[in-house]
């Protein structure tokens, strides 16, 4: 029983940065922008987040610094991909490479320092309930925040007019433009939201997960978040399932190895991506029911042409 509890706790922690970053990317992609710079925004968020927390001693200020850094990075992307209508794929990739270098520069003087990680919720008696107590009421704030964020995004996309307009921009930017909506402005906001989420996801790593900063510490989690949005077929609900599934596979394969179960670890590590490919195939075969990619995803829009 204790082992199951421990595994679930690890899975929740491992999934949270994926969920945060993927939620932001989902909104950006729903507006029609493919930002491959998630990894870059995350790692800069990690460096700035740690820096903020280390200098002020406050986890909240650290998280805000991470978000701000993510937004600034995303604005750089928006200026290129939206303002100058540069190819989104190339810009996104450049943003990642730039971010990895920049984070090393920002974080150089924080390497080797450590902070007190974000506290876990502790409600007397409630948190002590066996099994479910710690899982439901003993997490750090980021875990709850990430779930609340997904719910808010779902509500925004499907229950508000603004959400409908954002989705319209992603599905057919020419029509949305013809109806008088400021497509580029809406996309810029969506990209900024994506940046804030990626920055927060990056900041989660040094603030709660492993309370120190080392260059390259995101180690590819931004790319997993990108795969996740596809896996979730751009639906917030499935994103939660996908993130926890990805997290669970990562943790379970470690436990399987420790327990001496003879499944090659390399195979287990590749499972989430295999699942993504399978989901893509299933999506393209059954067009009914689920959502597919926003029709205008990744295409450049220049209003006056």
């Amino acid at each position, binding site marked *: 029983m*204790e*082992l199951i509890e*421990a*595994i679930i706790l*690890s899975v929740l922690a*491992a999934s949270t*940065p994926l969920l945060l970053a993927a939620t932001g990317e989902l909104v950006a992609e729903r507006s029609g922008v493919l930002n491959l710079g998630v990894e870059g925004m995350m790692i800069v968020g990690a460096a700035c987040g740690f820096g903020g927390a280390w200098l002020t001693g406050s986890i909240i200020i650290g998280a805000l610094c991470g978000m701000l850094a993510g937004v600034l990075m995303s604005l750089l992307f928006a200026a290129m991909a939206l303002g100058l209508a540069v190819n989104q794929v190339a810009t996104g990739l450049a943003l990642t490479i730039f971010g990895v270098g920049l984070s*090393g520069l920002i974080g*150089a003087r924080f*390497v*080797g320092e*450590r902070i007190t990680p974000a506290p876990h919720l502790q409600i007397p008696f409630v948190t002590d309930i066996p099994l479910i107590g710690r899982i439901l009421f003993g997490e750090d704030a980021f875990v709850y925040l990430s779930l609340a964020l997904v719910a808010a995004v779902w509500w925004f996309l499907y229950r508000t007019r603004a959400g409908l307009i954002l989705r319209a921009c992603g599905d057919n930017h020419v029509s949305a433009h013809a109806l008088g909506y400021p497509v580029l402005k809406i996309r810029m906001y969506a990209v900024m939201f994506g940046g804030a989420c990626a920055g927060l996801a990056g900041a989660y*790593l040094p603030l709660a*997960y*492993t*309370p*120190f900063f*080392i*260059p*390259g*510490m995101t*180690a*590819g*989690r931004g790319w997993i978040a990108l795969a996740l949005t596809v896996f979730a077929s751009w639906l917030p609900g499935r994103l939660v399932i996908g993130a926890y599934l990805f997290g669970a596979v*990562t*943790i379970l394969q*470690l*436990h399987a*190895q*420790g*327990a*001496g179960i*003879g499944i*090659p*670890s*390399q195979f287990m*590590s590749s499972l989430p991506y295999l699942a993504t490919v399978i989901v893509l195939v299933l999506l393209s075969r059954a067009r009914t029911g689920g959502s597919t990619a926003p029709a205008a995803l990744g295409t450049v829009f220049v209003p006056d042409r």
Partner: protein
Amino acid sequence: MRKNLLAAAATLLLAGGLTSSAIAAEKLKVGFIYLGPVGDLGWTYQHELARQAVVKEFGDKIETTFLENVPEGPDAERAVEQLVRAGNTLIFTTSFGYMDPTLKVAKKYPNVHFEHCSGYKRDKNMATYSARWYQGRYIQGEIAAKMSKAGVLGYIGSFPIPEVVSGINATMIGAQTVNPNIKVKIIWVNSWFDPGKEADAAKALLDQGADIIMQHTDSPAAMQIASERGKFAFGQDSEMIKFGPKAQLTSILDTWAPYYIERVKAQLDGSWKSADTWGGLETKMFEMAPYTNMPDDVKKLAEDTQAAIAAGKLHPFKCPVVGQDGKEVECKGGDHLDDGQILSMNFYVKGIDDKLPGK
């Protein structure tokens, strides 16, 4: 970094000028190529400490330049060549993946001397050097077996290559001298460096009942988790006690300084020769961090073992070495396994209740 690059660029320009070649000939220029940033607190950081020691030792008789964050592969060749053109006549390339690029440049410039870390290709002007880290792992095994209450060790591996496998085996052989029934749980994270995953692996091992964490990955994440849970761990490459003041038992420290100083000295007096140096505790190619957080008798045991290994009285792979299948491994080195067997080790010793990946 920038300052050094600028310095390198400036010397490049100067070397191209007419007047400066005479000056360049007077001072020995030594170049270094690093894989990571100097602040990585691990592998690269230790090489940088050694470079600083060289500077301190020889003062203004030499001039050093380093290039950091140089990716392994074709870019490395350009970086090495850049150092040659800047007038460096002794160049240390400090990662396995620089092997072929270094060799290529070495063939092109026969008058420049190269030192490559942890590779196996050599030339008249290209030497190699590495450390017998398995000796340290043997000591850690003894300490771990003494300190473990559960009798279960947790081991985080990077990739199942001979260096890592021989480390696991040395750990187990050391541990078995203290507790013949010691168990080890091994988790491969398939990465040298992924703090999050290393932390997850450490958590998984502790959750499964291990109470000592050992690692062959580079970040202090596992140490930090052990510290958080009130358990013990060993550092890797460099001093990690900051991340676990009450958790670190010891750490294998890469101390390249004595070797670097020796080689620079040889270069200065013209006696430099290509060689294959695989040093251990006996030549201080690596050292053990202070033995902390353990009772005095364990500390004494560790110190005695260290002294015995350094004096050549104890070999971690002394025969008979018994494989997982219960058969004795052929004893090629007299009373211990020979270097070739250790450098190509691809089996687990008896007592490891796990399967080596790919076997």
